[in-house]
């Protein structure tokens, strides 16, 4: 993916750019909103990562005109302002996701990659496959190796999200936000327990585990065997 990072803190930017490049992305960097805006106007990016507080032109003001010009490149806002109001303002201004500083880098990578995927035609896709696991959104059925698996509604939504982002790391916060639609950090292992229940249904009787834990980051659903 080609990613534009707009971040005024040089240290944080270096770290971001390096991390994203190591993850295999092409990264351009702008130090302020004005140059960020002109680089975005040049086009060709798959995702923007924009700090909300920027010198000159702030993040919201930078993105809004792009959106008005029909630029639909997904954007992730980074902000030290974590409250719901700010999140809502960021999303209203055309942001697609919002991440509060300090963030774990694994969370950022996971979210940026999820954003890049969002653009694909998979939003209208109704059938998913990961290995021998199949999901049909319309009939609400899940099969593994041809065998039907019964899931609770919430488990179905959880699996659906994982399948839509198969091969990517999804974090606990992403799951809470997208499956339950809550924005807070639970202190206990609420999400892990849901995952382990789901895992017991889709992986237990089969040889190759599909739902894997990524240490320090989250989970990933993939048919690739572990390294």
């Amino acid at each position: 993916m080609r990613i534009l990072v707009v971040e005024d803190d040089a240290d944080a930017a270096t770290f971001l750019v390096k991390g994203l490049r190591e993850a295999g992305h092409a990264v351009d960097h702008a130090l302020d909103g004005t140059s960020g805006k002109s680089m975005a106007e040049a086009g060709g990016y798959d995702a923007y990562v924009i700090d909300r507080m920027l010198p000159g032109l702030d993040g919201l003001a930078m993105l809004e005109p792009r959106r008005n010009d029909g630029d639909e490149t997904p954007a992730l806002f980074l902000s030290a302002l974590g409250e719901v109001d700010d999140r809502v303002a960021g999303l209203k201004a055309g942001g697609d996701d919002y991440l509060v500083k300090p963030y774990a880098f694994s969370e950022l990578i996971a979210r940026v990659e999820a954003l890049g995927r969002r653009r694909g035609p998979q939003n209208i896709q109704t059938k998913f496959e990961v290995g021998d696991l199949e999901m049909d959104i319309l009939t609400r059925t899940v099969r593994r190796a041809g065998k039907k698996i019964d899931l609770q509604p919430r488990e179905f939504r959880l699996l659906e999200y994982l399948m839509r982002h198969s091969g990517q790391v999804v974090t606990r916060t992403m799951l809470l936000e997208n499956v339950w639609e809550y924005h807070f950090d639970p202190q206990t292992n609420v999400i892990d327990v849901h995952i382990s229940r789901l895992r017991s249904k889709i992986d237990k009787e089969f040889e190759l585990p599909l739902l894997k834990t990524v240490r320090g980051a989250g989970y990933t659903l993939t048919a690739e065997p572990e390294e």
Partner: protein
Amino acid sequence: METPADQRPLTQRRFLPRLLRTSAFRYTMAFFILFMGCFIGIGYFVFASTLGNTMKRLDAELYNELQYFAALNSRFGQNGMAGLRAIEAEVARLQIVQKDALYVLVLGIEDRPYRVLSSDIEGFPEEAITAEGMFEFDYETRVIDRDTGEPRTVTRPAVGRRGNFLYRGVDGEEVRAIILTARDISEVTEIRENALSNVVRIAGFGAVLALALGAFYSGNFLRRVDQIGQTVKAIRDGDLTKRIALDGSNDEFDTLSDNINAMLDQIERLMTGMRQVSDNIAHDLRSPLTRIKARLERALADSEANEKDVLETTAVDVERLLATFNALLSITRIESGEGGGNQVAVDVAAVAEEMLELYEPAAADAGFTLVGHITAAPEVMGSRELISQAIANLLDNALKYARWSDETPPVAPTIEMTVGPRPGGGARLSVMDNGPGVSEADQERILQRFVRLERSRSTTGNGLGLSLVSAIARRHGAQISIGRGLSHHPGERALSMPSAYGLGVRIAFPPPAKPVKAPLAVAADRNAPQDAEETPGSA
């Protein structure tokens, strides 16, 4: 040494001019002027009509008398001067009979009086020659001074009418007789003058009274305002414990002072809270920072240190610091009213259902039975995010601290969440457990920031979970209370040992407030009877 006048505080400077400028004084003066205007107006009307009647009566009397003389004249007047004689005799009789009446009878030629036949007064008043109808004049009369016994001349007011009679004299010449009949009106004049002086006296007295009352009210007003001003000044100078004294009269100043006092209480509470927080921050953030610093310094000094280990433990410490910092920031923002999203109608029961569903596996995993008693409750104005956060914190808290350390707990670990309508409107929510519970002494404390009970020192956490719940409750105008949770001996009612219960946290959300009433909430609470009068329909 005396303080020069212009260096004294404003509140003590030039009391008198301030006294005259107060609105109380101005109102008193305005009412005084209005009152005097009415008083004089009504007095004048009554007086004028009474006096007018008296004069009319006198005029009628005089007119009738002249008619009487005319009748007398025409009866005798057919031959020469006989009519005049009759009139003269009658005047002489009346002068004795009528006490207040005055008569002057003169004979004159060509309008010039030259012979006074009979008179009660000195001279002939000038007005009498030309006047038509009734006229007023002054006359001089001699009286005996009561004190000295000497006779003296006094001038008195009178009203009179003039009658003309024409006779043919013995020589055939025209003889003109003029009769002036008059009444002394010194009594009437006296009444008029008395009334006038009374009016002046009353007006003067009223003015003095109004000034005194105005000064009194104004002084009272100023005293109360100065009292408030001095208290405010003392507070501005740093003494936050000062309060405005109420005088118990329940007047508008008492209400105002009461509200200001309530505001000061709130400010003091906030200030104390702030001070506590900064102390706590100093403690809770400084000690891990010191630990990190020490660890890093040791690692730098020790060439053989396992760098990865050091970095990993440091990362954990930093993460915890950040979590504490974020929680503190959230509490502060919630308390200051920032953030938390728009106020929308939130279905607490629905949120609770979702949270139950979210936490049920985790609770089961930790060996708890999570029970929900969710009944439909009225919607609450607030933020769904914050309410869900509060419920999550309560459940997290119960999962963490309702655990029994022994292998075989006395009861099956249970967490019970209840949502339902609150008596009197609004919704109530409670989360209760049957864990080891919290002693009554500690129950108040656990809502405060950074308070972690001895027992929980070993677990992770920053002591901010319940503070955040408390802040969220306050933000929604809800009452939060800490008390008994579930009994350790379900079914046995007789056992009421305080230690036989787990912890229970109850939140009572108010019904959605009427938007206009919201800023008056403090006043309404503190002056309940007055408020009840204002809104009779609210009960």
